[in-house]
């Protein structure tokens, strides 16, 4: 099994004819993801690569193809609109890869999703992958192997690094989820931890956080109270100077609660094994499993 996506995922790609959208759609199809529809306004009626029907609107696509998840590759200027459209069409899982959605837009997008019970992953995230089942987003399929470790991360390439370590050392993954580094995101560590805890085919979870915000502390609280499966944690940004941005808008240290030291301490208190560097992940997992 897996969380959020599996072989039953019928994916719709918003922005399928764009540069990023078309590239990654081919990657996803190549990996085995069931891409059932694409949406680009004005290009309805065409076939993408001769196989995937393209529609003008998400509503049209859902009606004709029974898509149950969307991934968004459209430019930042129209990405919030794409999320609204996917939610309005009744899709329950929406993965937004696009980076650069203004945070004030997200303050309105999130309640809209909440009212409809839709799950958003991202924005500004690499998406997720359930190895050998389905890949939604941009995580390179070749670094992943099927297995029983869940991975959840605020980062992109750092996730790849750690997944690579896992695969190299024989730890396959149930699902890897990149939740995104923006200040306002749809799916938090706690949602993923809860799903991994409930997934009978996940034995342990690797959680990759970074400086800024208090999501990791909330996750630690959740682990302490509600998780029986082992959790290994990492926090990027130990050397970040206070008060400076480190690329992710999320990485602004707000008081001491956002520092790496505080987060690592919260992890330790909650019984989470704390990695000092990415290469620690396999040894720590071996200890806990």
């Amino acid at each position, binding site marked *: 099994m897996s969380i959020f996506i599996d072989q039953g995922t019928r994916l719709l790609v918003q922005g399928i004819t764009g540069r*990023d959208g078309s590239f990654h759609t081919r990657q996803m199809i190549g990996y085995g993801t069931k891409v059932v529809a694409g949406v680009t306004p004005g290009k309805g009626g065409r076939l993408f690569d001769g196989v995937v029907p393209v529609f003008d609107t998400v509503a049209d696509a859902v009606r004709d193809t029974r898509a149950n998840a969307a991934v968004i590759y459209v430019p930042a200027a129209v990405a919030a609109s794409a999320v609204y459209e996917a939610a309005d069409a009744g899709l329950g899982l929406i993965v937004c890869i696009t980076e650069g*959605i203004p945070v*004030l837009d997200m303050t309105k997008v999130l*309640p809209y999703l909440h009212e409809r019970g839709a799950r958003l992953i991202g924005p500004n995230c690499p998406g997720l992958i359930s190895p050998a089942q389905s890949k939604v987003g941009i995580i*390179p399929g070749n670094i992943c192997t099927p297995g029983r470790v869940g991975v959840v991360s605020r*980062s992109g390439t750092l996730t*790849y690094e750690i997944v690579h370590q896992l695969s190299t050392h024989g730890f396959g993954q149930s699902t890897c989820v990149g939740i995104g580094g923006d200040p306002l995101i749809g799916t938090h560590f706690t949602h993923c931890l809860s799903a991994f805890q409930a997934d009978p085919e996940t034995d342990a979870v690797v959680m990759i956080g970074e400086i800024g915000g*208090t999501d990791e502390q909330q996750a630690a609280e959740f682990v302490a109270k509600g998780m029986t499966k082992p959790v290994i944690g990492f926090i990027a940004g130990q050397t970040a100077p206070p008060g400076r941005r480190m*690329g992710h808008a999320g990485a602004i240290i707000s008081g001491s609660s956002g520092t790496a030291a505080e987060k690592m301490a919260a992890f330790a208190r909650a019984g989470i094994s704390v990695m000092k560097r990415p290469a620690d992940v396999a040894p720590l997992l071996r200890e806990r499993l």
Partner: protein
Amino acid sequence: MNLHEYQARDILRRYGIPIPDGDVAESPAEARAVAQRLGGKVVVKAQVHAGGRGKAGGVQLAANADEAAAHASRILGMTIKGLTVHKVLVTPAADIASESYVGIIVDRASQRPVLMVSAAGGIDIEEVAATTPERIHRVAIDPRYGLLSHQALGLALRLYRDVGQARGAAGIMGNLYAACYAVGASLVEINPLVATPDGKILALDAKMVIDDNELDRRPEIAALRDASAEAPSEVQAREAGLTFIKLDGSVGCCVNGAGLAMATMDLVQYYGGAPANFLDIGGSSNPQKVVAALRIITADPHVKAILFNIFGGITRCDDVANGIVQATQQFPLHVPLVIRLTGTNEAEAVRILTAAGFSALTDMDEAVQQAVAQAGGAVGGGAA
């Protein structure tokens, strides 16, 4: 993007918030002219993107225009937290009966803009938050409905007993909220919001930070950027589409992705080195970005070795390799280069680098250790 006080004032005034007169000056003569126009006592304030300008001597009271010019001449050119002051704001010295704080910030926890007020204004609000949190009152705003009148009035009544003054302050809060969404601010503050002895409510100082993601759709706000008020290397990086932050170490870092960049810096420290910078080349891997990155890193005389750490996903390793080769053709590096590349088009990248005389590693720990060693070894206190 930070705005200067005078820019934030202009925006808030446009949104109906009462702000005292005043003008910006770039020379003592200009400051004298503004002070003359205003008449009476004035305040001369450094316009700089750094806190603590008051303590640094960047805010001065002047009894007349000559004094204003004298203060301006001292403040202009002053360095506050590494940033040079190029402009001063000259405003009338207001009579003040009381000082409050009003601010709006997007709160990650509630996922909403939060309006915060305190009757303890005029001083460092983070200090108030840390020591007497009960003196800060807040309300999370539901952006679907906006700031509701009763929410604003409820907070305003915490600042002013007089209902007329409270209504004035509530109106300012409403306008502040509107301005926030209209210009795409992730933070707006009025500190202090003052009551004058005759009962008027005025915004005496304004701070505004714009969400960088808003700038593309708001060219009129993007045009307010004052590059002269930022570190030149960061301006250069931004123009090349890179995220760059200068630090004090000797290992120059060039990484794709913010999380991996931070983890790389952490690993440099773990192995006893010190990172010279944070640099994220972002998702796309245009060779020109790599050239620009190398130009910025090599401009720092403290850099003793350069470390590339690329995990190819969207980023193509061959693009990065091409960038490195192009850069070395355009300018000399003078310091050793350690390259770690893995992922998309890794083999092609290795071929390109080898042909140009570089070697490439695939393991992150190994690469970081080599870079630390080449930069002169552990600086003490390292873990390995």
